[in-house]
């Protein structure tokens, strides 16, 4: 299936998803669905760097929150519509990704990972000390009742916007997989020294992957303030994003775009359902345990259990 057909298929599935949610008629479906979609975008974004090139980002929360807080700043300063705020959130996170990468990607992958961990702490500290966005007290964002132009409930609008982002991110991930770029990424993951000797500009590609991954994470976080209406560092930098960003792709399978989708839908839905019955901390503990279990027992994730394995199918 070529790229255009895949995008069409995604659009059809997206439209069907929206239609189904609308038909059910319960606002909760949109609220819960938004979170699952957000995680699909986040997990796929992580996988573009982690799964394809093998460089592990533990600071998902930082990139995600930067997108959210960009929206807070833009909301206070301008009247931009959400679809324009998202690319800006993406640019902010993308630049931070580029910067982090530039400083650490010449060295072995472990240092990049450690830097992302430390980065998460630092960014959270900076935001917590920044009064303009509310600091530790948080910021209130008024969610409009109805969406501009479309007139639907705003929560449905958020759902739709996130659906759109998911289509873009998935289409990008799949396009990369099948392209010259995708081969370059794979060789970086398999043997970086041999990749260089084969003519692959590894540093440039790693920076590209880091920037793209960070940007998509920022875009996934950008609508959050409108969703939660109250954003403070504790929720913006929630441990949930840190662990899910890593767990969902690893549980689903990192070898293709489908893995993070499976992982996000599975873990995301589980958590949405479980939040009602158990505490959020216990919820996260289960995710953490699943991460460790899968990484030890099923290194290729759910995709691997069904034979898709480490070898990626190419058209």
């Amino acid at each position: 299936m070529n790229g255009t057909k895949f995008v069409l298929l995604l659009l059809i599935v997206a439209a069907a998803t929206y239609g189904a949610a609308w038909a059910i008629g319960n606002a909760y479906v949109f609220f819960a669905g938004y979170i699952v979609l957000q995680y699909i975008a986040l997990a796929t974004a992580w996988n573009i760097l982690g799964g394809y090139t093998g460089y592990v980002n533990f600071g998902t929360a930082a990139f995600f929150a930067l997108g959210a807080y960009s929206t807070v700043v833009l909301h206070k300063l301008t009247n931009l519509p959400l679809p324009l705020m998202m690319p800006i959130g993406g640019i902010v996170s993308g630049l931070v990704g580029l910067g982090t990468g530039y400083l650490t990607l010449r060295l072995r992958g472990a240092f990049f990972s450690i830097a992302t961990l430390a980065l998460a702490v630092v960014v959270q500290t900076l935001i917590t000390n920044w009064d303009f966005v509310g600091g530790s007290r948080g910021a209130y964002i008024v969610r409009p009742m109805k969406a501009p132009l479309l007139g639907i409930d705003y929560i449905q609008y958020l759902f739709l916007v996130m659906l759109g982002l998911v289509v873009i991110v998935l289409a990008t991930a799949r396009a990369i997989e099948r392209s010259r770029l995708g081969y370059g990424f794979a060789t970086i993951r398999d043997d970086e020294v041999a990749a260089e000797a084969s003519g692959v500009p590894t540093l440039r590609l790693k920076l590209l992957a880091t920037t793209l991954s960070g940007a998509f994470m920022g875009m996934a976080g950008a609508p959050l303030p409108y969703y939660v209406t109250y954003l403070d560092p504790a929720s913006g930098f929630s441990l949930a994003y840190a662990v899910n960003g890593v767990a969902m792709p690893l549980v689903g399978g990192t070898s293709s775009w489908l893995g993070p989708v499976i992982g996000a839908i599975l873990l995301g839905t589980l958590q949405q359902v479980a939040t009602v019955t158990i505490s959020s901390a216990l919820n996260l503990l289960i995710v953490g345990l699943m991460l460790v279990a899968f990484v030890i027992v099923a290194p290729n994730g759910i995709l691997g259990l069904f034979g898709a394995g480490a070898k990626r199918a190419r058209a």
Partner: protein
Amino acid sequence: MPDSPLLEVSALGKRFGGFVALEAIDLAVHTGERLGLIGPNGSGKSTLVNCMCGTLRHEMGSVRFAGHTLNGLSAHERTRLGLARSFQLPRPFNTLTLAENVRVPLLYAGRHDTARAIDTHCIELLDMVGLADKSKRLPRDLTQIEMRKLELARAMAATPRLLIADEAMAGLSPGEVDDILALLIRLNEQGVTVILIEHIMRAVMHFSQRLVVLVAGHKIADGDPAVVVRDPDVVRAYLGE
């Protein structure tokens, strides 16, 4: 033969902490030449290759290739200039098929445009080393010897002007050695300069127009193969009495 050498190594030196791996290496390779490089294990042959190709940084000396100074250039830039190498210990891309392994250098360092041309060339390259029937397999299905052949195919896929074959024949049967030798000579006839690093003296003598000997990080001989192999220093250090 043109005036200036294709590859020119001047006073190259490399240390690992306190250990001197290479010292004051001068080497000139002319276009179209077939150079043999021999020496005991640990003499620095692979280190020299790594330094020339940019996988390792050397502290002293310089390397010039095709009129460009290579100092400061990354390995991939050097490959793109036309300097390719195979690895002594094969380093295949384990999650890619053989065809895909060979495709990567074609995509990134080769001189092709259409997908069809690349596809054809992939199979041709694998065919040259006798691996065409395994093009859809993964490297883990290969024997050690087949992995060496893949290494060579991958180096050739970068359409190099100069190819360094680092012990590509180790462990091959005499018939296979002849096959690879014939392949390298054919490449050379097509205009590719080749540096052959080997322990199999029969192959080295048959192949080389010039022979260089490296011992303990120093070049101790450089010249006509027949003369070099009778050099007493070479005999003492490497060939045996």
